[in-house]
């Protein structure tokens, strides 16, 4: 995990994080499917909250796993 200094969402001027874009959200979860902490993602507080909500919605819709690599 490469630690970042700047918030990726702020850099790319993303306002709302799309819960349907599981490829973008994939960067914010660990190889076990856990949501990465801010110290790892480098996100600002606002975007980290938005990402967290988006990940939880994506999990509910089975776009992202709740746990990855457990059953495989």
């Amino acid at each position, binding site marked *: *995990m*490469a*630690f*970042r*200094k700047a918030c*990726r969402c702020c850099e*790319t*001027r*993303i*306002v*709302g994080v*799309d*819960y*349907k*874009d599981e*490829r*973008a959200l*994939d*960067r914010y979860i660990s190889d076990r499917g856990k949501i990465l902490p801010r110290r790892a993602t480098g996100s600002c507080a606002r975007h980290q909250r938005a990402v967290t909500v988006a990940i939880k*919605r994506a*999990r*509910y*819709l*089975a*776009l*992202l*796993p*709740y746990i990855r690599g457990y*059953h495989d």
Partner: protein
Amino acid sequence: MRDYEIVYIFRVSLTSEEIEAKLKRYHAIIAADGSGEVTASVHWGKRQLAYPIQKQPNGYYVVARFTSSPDPLQELERALKLEDDVLRYLIVIQEHPWPLPDPAPTAPKPEEDGAEEADAEGADAEETEKADGAEADGEADAADDAADAADEADEAPDATEVEAEAEAADDADDATDEAPAEAEAEAEEPADDADTEQDGADADAGEPEESADAKEE
């Protein structure tokens, strides 16, 4: 009146006519109110679920947007909960103009270039989110994307970015004969950085885990 977005996951055993019929029924509930209106409906298509739902490995996704007062939502939710062929649904208030997903090639109203664009856009989904409209411009954009990806990788490379960048570079090569050499040159350099950086990161990641184990014991 608010803008909402709803995602349905249907059983894949349904035919497209059956799905259309069901969608029509649900959207009629929204419209029945008089003020409600369905503004968009996109068949995302059959996708593999990240985990089985009701023992189904796959689902057929449909995304729709509508404006409505809050009142019909209760009735809509009740109808959806009783429906066995909807594996899951999610209604959210649409706070942002998220891009609609690309329709599946097999969707009832297919758009020819949908599938091709999906690949190009997937190359760097995050950037796509911000510049969805511009993406369609094609040739020049593909080269831009490659350059952007290279810039990003320079700053803080990680595995996914390198992949995305490589794809973007490929796309650029395919799409443009104008400056393929440039794109390649830019693409190669950060790739080396990425390797070294990644090794370092792996080592970092290993240590805290071990200490955590030690603590447990």
